[in-house]
């Protein structure tokens, strides 16, 4: 028993040293159970967000206003499916099966980014999602490229390249609308009005109330706090809104020359928690569609499996 304890202590010390020197932790390395659990929670939540995020954008593929926009949106949603796949694979390296992750998503045990519980009502929402939601996601993902867990960090490097293309196409949709007719400008402004605050909420609760931030920072899973990332996002996005000639729906937003940052108003955390708890417009629909696609596909997956087994048996017999 004593030997066991001392070996755990030794492993823990080795792990701590690796974290301290900014080395990557790899799947076969020893890691504390809580580190593993935190990563599984975070990576699977990230994967689910990519997959559920396909729905609000997919909602406009069949109604995209030009063939170019249709093709770009199809490519973007397809990228998201790909991101979901890398992330499920990264989480699988920690010993969690994809089937289990999907079951947890469908039962509500695992979460996805709450922003996807808001509806995409107009074409401008597709622009706003690319510009704001992908913009916020990139802030977070750029940080995660330096995450201490190797497979997650490497997945993020790949994902970030595609995400920056997504953000640019979103901004370009907004720019086209902002330079268009009065109706198009109004559509763009309305989308900004509805997506601004939920985008700020994407960084998670304030540092003072974030249960996981401190430990995640110590493990170097996260490198910046929720509030730091939120501030960077506001600082980056506000001049872009000015350039578009759109008004960010925050009367308290103003440049603070001394601090070198924009000051902004209080996020409505009540709304955030309401939507997280299931009271967003689309929560139930998102899960229902995921469950339906999964159940509708059961016979297909079973057939593929049965066929593969029969082929394998035949190959063995031959």
């Amino acid at each position, binding site marked *: 028993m004593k030997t066991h304890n001392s070996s755990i202590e030794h492993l823990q010390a080795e792990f701590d040293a690796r974290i301290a020197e900014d080395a990557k932790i790899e799947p076969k390395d020893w890691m504390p159970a809580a580190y593993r659990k935190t990563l599984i929670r975070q990576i699977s939540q990230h994967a689910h967000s990519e*997959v559920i995020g*396909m*729905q609000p954008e*997919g909602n406009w*593929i*069949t*109604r*995209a*206003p*030009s*063939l*170019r*926009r*249709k*093709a770009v949106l*199809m*490519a973007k*949603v*397809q990228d998201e*499916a*790909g991101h*979901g*796949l890398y992330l*499920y694979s990264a989480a699988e390296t920690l010993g969690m099966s994809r089937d289990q992750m999907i079951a947890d998503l469908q039962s509500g045990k695992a979460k996805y980014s709450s922003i996807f519980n808001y509806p995409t009502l107009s*074409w401008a929402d597709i622009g706003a999602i690319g510009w704001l939601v992908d913009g916020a996601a990139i802030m977070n993902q750029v940080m995660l490229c330096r995450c201490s867990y190797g497979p997650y960090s490497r997945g993020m490097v790949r994902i970030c390249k595609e995400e920056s293309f997504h953000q640019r196409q979103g901004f370009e*949709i907004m720019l*086209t*609308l902002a330079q*268009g*007719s009065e*109706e*198009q400008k109004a559509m763009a402004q309305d989308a900004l009005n509805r997506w601004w605050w939920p985008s700020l909420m994407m960084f998670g609760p304030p540092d003072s109330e974030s249960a996981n931030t401190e430990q995640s920072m110590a493990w170097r899973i996260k490198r910046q706090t929720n509030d730091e990332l939120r501030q960077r996002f506001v600082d980056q996005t506000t001049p872009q809104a000015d350039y578009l000639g759109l008004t960010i729906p925050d009367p308290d937003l103003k440049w603070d020359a001394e601090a070198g940052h924009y000051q902004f108003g209080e996020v409505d955390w009540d709304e955030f928690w309401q939507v997280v708890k299931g009271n967003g417009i689309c929560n139930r629909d998102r899960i229902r*569609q*995921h469950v*339906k*696609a*999964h159940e*509708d*596909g*059961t*016979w*297909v*997956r*079973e*057939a*593929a499996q*049965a*066929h*593969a087994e*029969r082929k394998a048996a035949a190959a063995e017999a031959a």
Partner: protein
Amino acid sequence: MDAQTQQDLFEYTLRLGDDALTLGHRISEWTSKAPFLEEDIALGNIGLDFVGRARLLLTYAGEVENLGRDEDQLAYLRDIRQYRNLLICELPIGNFADTMARQLLVDAFELPYFQALSQSSDRTLAGIAGKAVKEAQYHLRHSSGWVVRLGDGTEESHGKMADALSKVWGYGPEMFITDEVEQRLVDAGIAVQREELRDGWQAQIERVLEEATLAVPDVSWQVDGGRRGEHTEYLGHMLAEMQFMQRAYPGLQW
């Protein structure tokens, strides 16, 4: 190019463009609905191939027509009677077996068709066809793979696959009709004689069905009309959805 050839070439390019657009749109309806994530990606790829091809063809049709219509005006501002696609391309996606049955019939036709069209004397069409050949090779591998897996899978999947084939089978023969417009272009070395591909197509399908332990559907009906603008009722609903933005907000850039 004489006026008759120009008119025929416009009509022909529009037909191929409409085939690609309607089928690409249908496949895009699978977004977030595929049986698993890898298949979402595969269908996304295939749908994109068709939409990309539609863009090239409709752009070229507009150039040939020379009335200033671009790909979007052709896609979004024609009503159902002006659409020229094959009926098989506009059918609803149905279940996964329905989608794969339709794809098998179309893909097995398109591969040799675009191989032949890549030799067209019209260099633009030949170029588009050359790109389509590479896509169709992958499409056919994908759809025949699934027809085999589903046919030779479980009892349930076998039944669904057989049912899907019998529902789509009668839309196949329309792919092989070469009307006067296309015949004139065949004679000019531009288009491909469709009838000549029928036996090879039939043999290809039969090989796949045999491996899939499925019988060639025993159906006596067949329909056509798409090239004349006589469509199923499904297409009007597809266009209502697809054209919504351009109809609700006319004349704007997006």
